[in-house]
């Protein structure tokens, strides 16, 4: 059922008790034309675009937990496209363009809010790096501008620009089209729209093995709900990518780290934008509920524990209290961790693999939420056509062999 004014009025007559389920809960069929492993935003989006743009309707998304329960439901939702290299700008900007229309495309309010993302510079090195980003972006027609500390404070009035800070603010790069969206709504919106086109989303179904024929091509997956046949598998398993790819004997250039976030008690609106600081490891925005959403850096060591050390979040709060002195007496309500898959060059992999019929979308590390629609869109193309879309052609596994890395360490060094 579409969300519309008419349906809203009709449902109101029965006190909203008769809205249908937003997606189906099917049991797996014996075989599908394609299987996506992982029902995060990227996996669900991939299924959506496979159905919508490539006419593949006999497909399934397999999820070991509940849909959107991975990093999609744990992230701090910052969206921006101010990356350094043309390859990345193409990919992230494709995504920002899709965000702009996503709510109406999915008939689901993903609450995309381009409220501006401001990245603070605290050192001469920061200034040089961010100005380089500003110029590189503007050459590609992507908005990004340099602000003085006073202009930064005008944009975000609670910011402390005192020269007496431990790391004073020397300026900032601002992308006005950057912002946030509602994380869960992205997963739910894609799930609902994909399910309506016939995509089977199967939750509580963990993939345990990948079966291949003597030629090496994939023939299906072993799951906790039995064997399911298919000739095409898209792995979109974020922190668990190395584990899943290991089932097909493919080693990956990935390491999985815990990444944490926390939220404060809800308060009246005090913050109109997103502020990030790579140098002192903190970033913050305010959700529509009023909670301050705060993100930390990754823990030092690889782990699948989905928790992180308390000293990491404490360190982040030190920085937050210095940047925004008026939040010092707020209480923190919750903190949590996700497991992020990090590549050596901090750019994702959206690629065919050495195994026939096996495709992988991973390596989004600390910053893949912003890319959800764009990534899903070009990954669906890659699976359907068995070749990459021009936008993701450079994001291969092979680049680690050829040396054509896409080094975004400066754009992605802190979690976002």
């Amino acid at each position, binding site marked *: 059922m579409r969300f519309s004014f008419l349906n809203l009025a009709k449902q109101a007559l029965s006190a909203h008790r008769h809205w249908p389920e937003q997606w189906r809960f099917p049991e797996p069929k014996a075989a599908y034309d394609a299987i996506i492993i992982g029902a995060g935003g990227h996996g669900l989006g991939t299924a959506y675009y496979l159905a919508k743009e490539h006419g593949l309707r006999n497909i399934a998304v397999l999820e070991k937990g509940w849909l959107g329960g991975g990093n999609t439901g744990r992230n701090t939702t910052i969206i921006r496209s101010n990356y350094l290299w043309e390859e990345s700008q193409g990919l992230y900007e494709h995504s920002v363009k899709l965000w702009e229309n996503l709510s109406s495309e999915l008939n689901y309010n993903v609450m995309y809010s381009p409220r501006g993302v401001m990245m603070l510079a605290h050192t001469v090195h920061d200034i040089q790096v961010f100005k380089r980003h500003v110029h590189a972006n503007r050459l590609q027609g992507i908005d990004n501008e340099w602000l003085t500390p006073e202009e930064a404070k005008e944009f975000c009035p609670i910011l402390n620009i005192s020269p007496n800070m431990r790391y004073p603010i020397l300026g900032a790069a601002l992308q006005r089209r950057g912002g946030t969206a509602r994380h869960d709504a992205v997963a739910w919106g894609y799930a609902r729209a994909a399910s309506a086109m016939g995509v089977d989303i199967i939750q509580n179904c963990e993939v345990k093995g990948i079966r291949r024929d003597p030629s090496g091509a994939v023939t299906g997956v072993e799951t906790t709900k039995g064997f399911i046949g298919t000739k095409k598998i898209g792995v979109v398993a974020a922190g668990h990518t190395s584990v899943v790819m290991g089932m097909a004997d493919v080693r990956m250039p990935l*390491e999985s780290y815990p990444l944490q976030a926390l939220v404060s008690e809800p308060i009246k609106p005090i913050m109109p934008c997103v502020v990030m600081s790579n140098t002192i490891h903190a970033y913050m925005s305010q959700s529509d509920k009023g909670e301050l959403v705060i993100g930390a850096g990754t823990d*030092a060591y690889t782990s*699948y524990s989905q928790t992180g050390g308390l000293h990491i979040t404490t360190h982040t709060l030190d920085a937050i209290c210095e940047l925004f002195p008026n939040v010092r007496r707020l209480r923190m309500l919750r903190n949590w961790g996700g497991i992020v898959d990090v590549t050596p060059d901090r750019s994702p992999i959206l690629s065919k693999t050495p195994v026939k019929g096996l495709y992988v979308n991973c390596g989004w590390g600390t910053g893949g939420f912003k890319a959800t629609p764009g990534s899903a869109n070009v990954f669906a193309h890659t699976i359907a056509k068995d070749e990459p879309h021009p936008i993701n052609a450079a994001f291969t596994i092979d680049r680690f062999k050829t040396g054509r890395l896409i080094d975004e360490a400066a754009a992605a060094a802190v979690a976002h």
Partner: protein
Amino acid sequence: MLLIPCPHCGNRPELEFRYAGEAHIARPADPSTTSDQEWAEYLYFRSNPKGLHIERWRHVSGCARFFNCVRDTVSDKILKTYPAGQPKPDLAELVKEAGQ
């Protein structure tokens, strides 16, 4: 925060250490005959296991020495640490000892 038993100094808080990635990855002995694929494996590809991981740590704020550590990446429990240069321990043996 992890409590890490430095093989030289004993139990110390994680803050005194720096993580240094997967252990027992040897630099290719003869660079001139090493293929691109082998370089890539050495530089970038990692086992990243969900389970026992053998990794290097450096006790930067203590003895400053590198050492190796076997840690379960699901529970973050450390099963063993040993000085750099010693051979890889038998993981099956370690699991038995830990009674897991």
